[in-house]
């Protein structure tokens, strides 16, 4: 796959903008920003970005910005239909996120039931948001 490089502070994906491609982090660190708030900082090689936009055919939900010089493998969305290995990698990431978000949501519920203060509940909600919003990587498959 071709590689693109981004300098520190460069925007990699713009929220609200539609692009037709998947990005896999090769090296570097990026942040995921939603509504002006950082929801994740990512440096794990293999982390995927842009997959929800591609699968849902909609604009990106969050902004991705390089925190340091970062490199990505770039693939067109059609690779999901033509390369089972890539398709499987992305599917496994999605499903893992769904599963993890589900478990964190259970933690949110327990905290509400325990009468925890809003800031404690909010922390667990942030974790759910991180899992829902950004791709991450398949820890077993990269």
């Amino acid at each position, binding site marked *: 796959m071709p590689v693109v490089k981004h300098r520190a502070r460069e925007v990699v994906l713009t929220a609200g903008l539609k692009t037709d491609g998947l990005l896999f982090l090769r090296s570097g660190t990026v942040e995921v920003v939603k509504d002006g708030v950082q929801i994740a900082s990512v440096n794990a090689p293999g982390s995927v970005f842009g*997959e929800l936009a591609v699968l849902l055919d909609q604009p990106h939900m969050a902004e991705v910005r390089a925190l340091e010089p970062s490199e990505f493998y770039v693939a067109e969305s059609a690779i999901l239909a033509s390369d089972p290995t890539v398709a499987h990698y992305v599917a496994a990431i999605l499903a893992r996120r769904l599963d993890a978000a589900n478990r964190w949501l259970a933690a949110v519920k327990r905290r509400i039931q325990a009468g925890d203060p809003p800031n404690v509940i909010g922390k667990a909600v942030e974790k759910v948001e991180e899992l829902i919003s950004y791709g991450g990587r398949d820890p077993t498959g990269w």
Partner: protein
Amino acid sequence: MPLIPDSAVFQRRLGALPLATYQAGENVLTTGSRTGQLLILKKGAVSISKEAVEIAKVAEPGAGEISALLDQPHTADVRALESSEFYVADAASLLVQDPVVLLYVSAIVAQRLNRANQVLIELKSQIHAGQPPSEIGKTVEKIEELLGPSGGNLAYAGYPYDPFA
């Protein structure tokens, strides 16, 4: 051509798979079992329970909705509530080798994450506004429906199987 095949293409693909029928009360999947099979509900209704407590019911899928039950060593039992038919596929070969099925399943998961994300915005503003726990709890349940096993599309949170496990 759109990236995600429409459900008719997916249904045709499923049509080639063997069927398994379970009678009312029969166990479809048992906690801790692992057969490597992907079960896709064609007809009927099942109950998903965890430690003997029912956590979801999955009924006959509507148009474009597929209920997939994946057998991995997991913490839930699946029992037929009525006579139910499933397409049976080898999970490894179907999911790994068939991009059509894989894409379709991915799109369903992506839709659920996306809808959950929209409700999460509501949840955050409720917490921020200091709404009572009962109200916040209702919104959490909405998200739970989208993410959890009763999501109605891809039924069982046990997906994905771990191809590397």
